[in-house]
């Protein structure tokens, strides 16, 4: 059944984790099933990726395994979860405490909230040993330092004495992995451990998990929504949708030849890293940014603290009907640029010209007039709409600000909602009645109803599921064609940039490192930084949309 040479068969040949018929329900009368009839198993040395969109139940399954379900809202109604033959669903709390850390361990998404901010990290890793072993303090310290070295942290003595906030995100995640694996558990559950990390850090963490797994023979359950990661690390894949397992199989089988329709839809929604061929834009410039800079100075009036340049010397031009992408990792300054362009932050230097008028230097009256020409859509659809106001009110707010009569504004809003593929009766409902993708459409409608020349999308699809993301990107493409608007698209995801951007700017630490057409930047990058970004992109040798490896001539 398994062709993976890394699999270690233990004496009885049974899987390390065997989930069978697991059903988890909401603890309320008539509560719905969050997870229903889920079954899969994981063997020693094997990596099983559980993929699914939000609401699929993948996190709930892993929490149930660790016995960490929120007691007052969710309850395991049926099924069993056997770790090395022992059913953890029916284990006593005391037994679960013994098992956690020693037999099964978990790594979560957010490394900062997984570490106690007021304790030194060395002590936190040692705590695992203190709870499960009878080693003395000196021996514990030695073991911890050894583990910190095996997760490739530099200068382990200094890190042992550091607090979490003194470390970077990648370093913190390594600490969390050290805590999880120090007792050599048989099972490691990783719930989106790299989603909050930069793509290059992500690559290192994935390699680290792979390495430790090979050394210790751990069974790894890797939960993710990122198919690129799946393509790189999975031995087997479990696809979940709305609480049920839709399909399981070997990686090649699922990616090349999925049998279920949902799986096919999911896999083919992943955008390709190879940019589409598109005609060069030739409209007139709607946005002209010259030497834009934003400098933050820490310290008060008395203290002359060093300046931090969040953005420096950024220059680009956006034409009518064009989509310009700004790509970079976190801290690169791309969000700062977006906010400066929309004048949510005041730039320290440079010009942002909207058809000749500089919004960066505009006074209050001029600014009020210019604001309607450039609109922004934010990243988090769950926080972008006032939860207390009806959707219709939120959409017409801008129009009412500029004096349009209410009747006319409502009609325009209804028309724009249809443009973004939402029914007009959505105007009467509240935001919480819509899904993330629908809310993002509403936000796009709110921006478009102002008839701006420029639309800034600040990571507008980053928080969406991959299938919903595909729909929203499609929508932007349609809008661009119909309305002829210019779009400034900020993203950290190269695949998304490849799919819809005409021109790409790559930013690193506040500066534009490379710029050019999408085809140039992604297929033939000149700068080493750009090349390292592309090489770190997970799953870059796989063409998801066509269910096959990337064709040789198009590979970077």
């Amino acid at each position, binding site marked *: 059944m398994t062709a993976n040479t890394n699999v270690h068969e233990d004496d009885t040949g049974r899987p390390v984790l065997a989930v069978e018929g697991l059903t988890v329900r909401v603890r309320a009368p008539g509560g719905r099933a969050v997870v229903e009839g889920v079954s899969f198993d994981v063997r020693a040395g094997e990596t099983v990726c559980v993929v699914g969109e939000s609401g699929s139940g993948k996190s709930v399954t892993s929490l149930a395994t660790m016995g960490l379900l929120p007691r007052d809202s969710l309850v395991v109604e049926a099924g069993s979860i056997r770790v090395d033959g022992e059913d953890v669903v029916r284990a006593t709390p005391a037994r679960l405490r013994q098992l956690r850390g020693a037999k099964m361990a978990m790594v979560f998404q957010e490394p900062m909230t997984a570490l106690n901010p007021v304790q030194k990290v060395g002590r936190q890793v040692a705590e695992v040993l203190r709870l499960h072993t009878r080693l003395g303090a000196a021996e514990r310290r030695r073991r911890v330092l050894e583990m910190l070295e095996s997760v490739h942290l530099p200068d382990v003595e200094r890190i042992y004495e550091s607090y979490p906030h003194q470390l970077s995100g990648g370093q913190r995640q390594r600490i969390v992995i050290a805590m999880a694996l120090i007792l050599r558990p048989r099972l490691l559950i990783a719930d989106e451990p790299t989603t909050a990390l930069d793509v290059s850090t992500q690559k290192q963490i994935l390699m680290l998990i792979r390495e430790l797994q090979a050394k210790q023979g751990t069974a790894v359950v890797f939960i993710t929504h990122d198919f690129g990661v799946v393509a790189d690390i999975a031995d087997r894949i479990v696809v979940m949708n709305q609480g049920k397992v839709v399909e399981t199989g070997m990686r090649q089988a699922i990616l090349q030849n999925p049998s279920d329709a949902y799986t096919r839809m999911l896999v083919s929604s992943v955008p390709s890293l190879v940019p589409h061929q598109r005609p060069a834009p030739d409209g007139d410039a709607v946005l002209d940014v010259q030497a834009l800079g934003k400098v933050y100075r820490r310290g008060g009036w008395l203290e002359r603290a060093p300046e931090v340049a969040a953005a420096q010397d950024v220059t680009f031009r956006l034409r009518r009907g064009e989509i310009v992408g700004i790509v970079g990792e976190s801290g690169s300054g791309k969000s700062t640029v977006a906010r400066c362009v929309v004048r949510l932050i005041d730039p320290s230097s440079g010009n942002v010209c909207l058809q000749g008028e500089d919004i960066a230097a505009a006074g209050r009256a001029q600014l009020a007039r210019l604001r309607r020409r450039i609109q922004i859509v934010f990243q988090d659809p769950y926080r972008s*709409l006032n939860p207390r106001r009806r959707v219709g009110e939120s959409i017409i707010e801008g129009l009412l600000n500029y004096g349009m009569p209410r009747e006319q504004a409502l009609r325009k809003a209804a028309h724009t909602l249809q443009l973004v593929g939402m029914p007009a009766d959505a105007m009467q409902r509240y935001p919480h009645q819509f899904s993330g993708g629908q809310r993002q459409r509403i936000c796009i409608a709110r921006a478009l109803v102002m008839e701006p020349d420029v639309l800034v999308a600040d990571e507008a699809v980053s928080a969406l599921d991959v299938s919903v993301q595909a729909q929203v990107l499609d929508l932007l493409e349609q809008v661009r064609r119909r309305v002829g608007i210019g779009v400034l698209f900020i993203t950290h995801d190269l695949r998304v940039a490849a799919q819809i951007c005409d021109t790409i700017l790559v930013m690193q630490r506040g500066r534009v490192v490379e710029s050019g057409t999408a085809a140039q930047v992604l297929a033939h990058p000149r700068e080493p930084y750009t090349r390292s970004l592309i090489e770190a992109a997970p799953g870059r040798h796989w063409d998801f949309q066509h269910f096959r490896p990337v064709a040789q001539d198009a590979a970077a």
Partner: protein
Amino acid sequence: MASVPSISDASGASQQSALSQVLRSPPVAIALAVLAASVIMAVFAPWLNTIDPVQIDPTQRLKPPSAEHWLGTDAYGRDVYSRVIYGSRVSLVVGVSVAVFSIAAGLVIGVIAGYFRWADAIIMRVMDGLMAIPGVLLAIALVSLSGASLTTVIVAITIPEIPRVVRLVRGVVLSVRNEPYVEAAISLGTSPLAVMIRHLVPNTVAPLIVQGTYIFASAILTEAILSFLGAGVPPEISSWGNIMAEGRSFFQLIPGLVLYPGAVLSLLVLSVNVLGDALRDSLDPRMSRRL
């Protein structure tokens, strides 16, 4: 993404059912009953078998409870029962007025402090200064400056309560003003005033309701203290504090003069605090995220 599906979303229906569940629990039901009884006492005072609370009858001084005077008489022969009933009027009026005014003032100041960076430092230092002064002392000083009257007492109790409200409102405003929907409103050209009213203030309503009940209880108590110390409402107005102050000298003889108004006062303050706790518990979990 990687989060447990939120079971309790902020839909009005689930919020109301949680609230009504809380309201049905015994301590809260009793507290509500006490509060209702106090309101009935205050509103229907003339019809509750009371006589004029300030009517003196020197022949009936310091009598124990009887059929004619349900709680006895005080040192001037006034009916204690009537005084206690009419005293509830002062307490409730002071409590509600102080709560309303301090919240109104605190809301305005707090929103300005939270929204405008330059105003924040100045306003908060002034508030810190106000908080450093003991409330009762400040009230006594104000009353002695402008003379004793109901209005003065209300103003004197309101002012020390404002800083706490300002802090609360400012905290909420600071956390909400960076939300994407507020930024969206700004980029749609919404004026600062409209942003404050439409998007920021609604977030303060729930915590302010809870805070309001606590201020209500605290104001009633403070008024009683002030009247007890002789710095509150003038002696011709029946206030629980006044009654206790006058009854203090005769405590050995007729303890009821202190105990009856004291008991009613304690019961009312306790009930309002219990209600405030219940409101806070039912509104808070909706604010915080699960997992």
